[in-house]
């Protein structure tokens, strides 16, 4: 029989209130852990996913929408722009390099990005197998796309019209995989890249305007080399950091195009959602405070109910420190159990959020890092100790003889 066992037995005897305290505490810890992780991880995951794209130029409209569609590849396409105009817009000493991109087709739900080979430089990607495409209907798969779609060198694909599963198949032509990219942690991992000239090959025999690919919808067509006249967007890298403050604004105000700085837009989005995060943090903290109060009240009434038992411990020779230990151990056991349950809940919640983010190409760890976990643990211990101070002091300072007579 140890004094720890005694604390545990006492806890078991008031299992109802103990369980409630554990559940509320666990929910608070899980919420705090998840929100803190998300608040930290999502912006860095977004930043990483964007790779080296300093600017995205697209049709007139919302900058955030443009970034979500053409830089992060989360939302549907939002219109087209003339390749020539985009090229003119990015012809600027501040722009180091630019790459056109066009969207419109997919393969089993994985986006096909029609573009040019320098795109891999923007995302810092390199081939792990095979070679880059050299002409139409050759494709290079991002690491995750290759794994998900079971693509390997020489694989052939029949694309689907539209970005969702279930669109009409372009059975007139198929792509051949010529290369697989190494993982980068950027959005390129979940894309299939193909040459811009592929658009014409895939859509050339289609008479339905809705089935004619992005260039036809834009009323463009193809140039003499078979390149589309209209594209979805242009990605660019700046030659100097100062360009971020100048070039997007210049393009947006002086042309019929919209230029957005992805990092700036993401920072703006973060600022917009920060109140929601803060609210969740407050809720998490409130859960924690309520759990601490419940633990304190539960402990106080439990210790009052067993004042005789604690007095008996003194009479049996226990030091005041030992009596305090018995009393405080109850609170500490509650914390351990709440923390363990909270950790499991946080993992489950984190896994759900991480899975959701993964579907957007954002890689986040489903659990908080050790420093956060340690901080929450210490916080919970501190709350338990604070919650125990009054009831434990009353138990320890109680007059043994008086308590026995009570």
């Amino acid at each position, binding site marked *: 029989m*140890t004094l720890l066992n005694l604390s545990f037995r006492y806890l078991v005897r008031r299992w109802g209130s103990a369980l409630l305290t554990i559940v509320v505490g666990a929910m608070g810890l899980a919420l705090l852990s998840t929100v803190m992780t998300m608040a930290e991880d999502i912006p860095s995951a977004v930043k990483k996913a964007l790779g080296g794209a300093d600017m995205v130029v697209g049709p007139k409209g919302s900058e955030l929408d443009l970034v979500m569609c053409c830089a992060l590849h989360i939302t549907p396409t939002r219109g087209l722009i003339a390749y020539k105009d985009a090229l003119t817009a990015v012809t600027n000493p501040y722009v180091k390099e630019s790459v056109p991109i066009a969207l419109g087709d997919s393969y089993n739900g994985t986006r096909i990005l029609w573009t040019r080979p320098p795109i891999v430089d923007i995302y810092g990607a390199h081939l792990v197998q095979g070679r880059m495409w050299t002409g139409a209907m050759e494709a290079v798969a991002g690491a995750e796309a290759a794994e998900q779609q079971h693509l390997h060198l020489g694989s052939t694909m029949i694309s689907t019209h539209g970005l969702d599963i279930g669109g009409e198949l372009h059975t007139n032509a198929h792509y051949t995989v010529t290369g697989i990219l190494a993982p980068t942690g950027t959005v390129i991992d979940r894309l299939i890249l193909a040459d811009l000239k592929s658009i014409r090959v895939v859509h050339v025999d289609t008479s339905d305007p809705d089935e004619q690919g992005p260039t036809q919808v834009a009323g463009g067509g193809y140039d003499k080399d078979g390149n589309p006249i209209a594209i979805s967007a242009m990605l660019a890298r700046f030659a100097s950091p100062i360009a971020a403050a100048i070039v997007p604004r210049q393009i947006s105000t002086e042309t019929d195009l919209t230029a957005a700085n992805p990092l700036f837009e993401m920072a703006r989005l973060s600022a917009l959602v920060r109140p929601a995060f803060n609210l969740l943090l407050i809720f998490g903290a409130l859960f924690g405070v309520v759990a601490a109060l419940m633990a304190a009240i539960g402990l106080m009434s439990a210790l009052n109910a067993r004042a005789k038992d604690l007095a008996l411990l003194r009479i049996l020779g226990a030091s005041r420190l030992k009596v305090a230990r018995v009393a405080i151990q109850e609170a500490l056991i509650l914390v351990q159990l709440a923390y363990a349950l909270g950790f499991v809940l946080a993992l489950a919640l984190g896994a759900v959020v991480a899975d959701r983010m993964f579907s957007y190409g954002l890689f986040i760890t489903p659990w908080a890092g050790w420093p956060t976990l340690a901080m929450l643990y210490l916080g919970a211990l501190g709350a338990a100790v604070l919650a125990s101070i009054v009831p434990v002091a009353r138990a320890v300072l109680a007059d043994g003889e008086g308590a026995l007579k009570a």
Partner: protein
Amino acid sequence: MVLSIDRLTVRRGDRVIPSPNIDLAAGQSLALRGPSGVGKTSLLLAMAGILKPEAGRVFVDGQSLWELGEEARAQVRGRRIGYVFASFHLIDALSVTENLQLARACAGLSPDRERAAHLLASLGIGAFASRRVDRLSQGQMQRVALARALMNRPKVLLCDEPTAALDDDSAETMIGLLKRSAAAEGAALLVATHDQRVMSSLDGIVALQADGLPAKESVA
């Protein structure tokens, strides 16, 4: 002498209760007799180092209990004194054996399963070792309380009205158990009681009178 009481008095409100001087050697037994409310329990608590006396000294195994610091006194109480309360004061959340082991844990001693099993068997409650104490009869609880008091091999065993809650047969048995156990452990036994059967079975009797004046009647 393992228990010496020297001019001990305790205060209860305006009343000062004097104790007779007592010297008990190992294996000796004595009844502290007196009507209800006269202050027997208060004196016993002072002798156990629980209730601070008004004056006087209590020596347990040569140590002046009330001259020790609080924690040292608690340690002497835990290791040298066994106390059987009139209302048992067992811990309901624990089993019989765990109540016994708790006495060792409180005194800073390691658990002793053999000792617990031996005591429970000798007191005839070995079969209830793992039963929770709140599921025992009054007589069984009394025996558990006695076993707990003996668990740390005390030099002095103090019992407060050990037969008060028992019927005649159980009381008879308890008296026998008390005497035998104390003798077997070599402990001095002091029993506060107003039960004639208890008094007649012990080595001596000291009485507390209702007016608070002690009167030593006989010591064997």
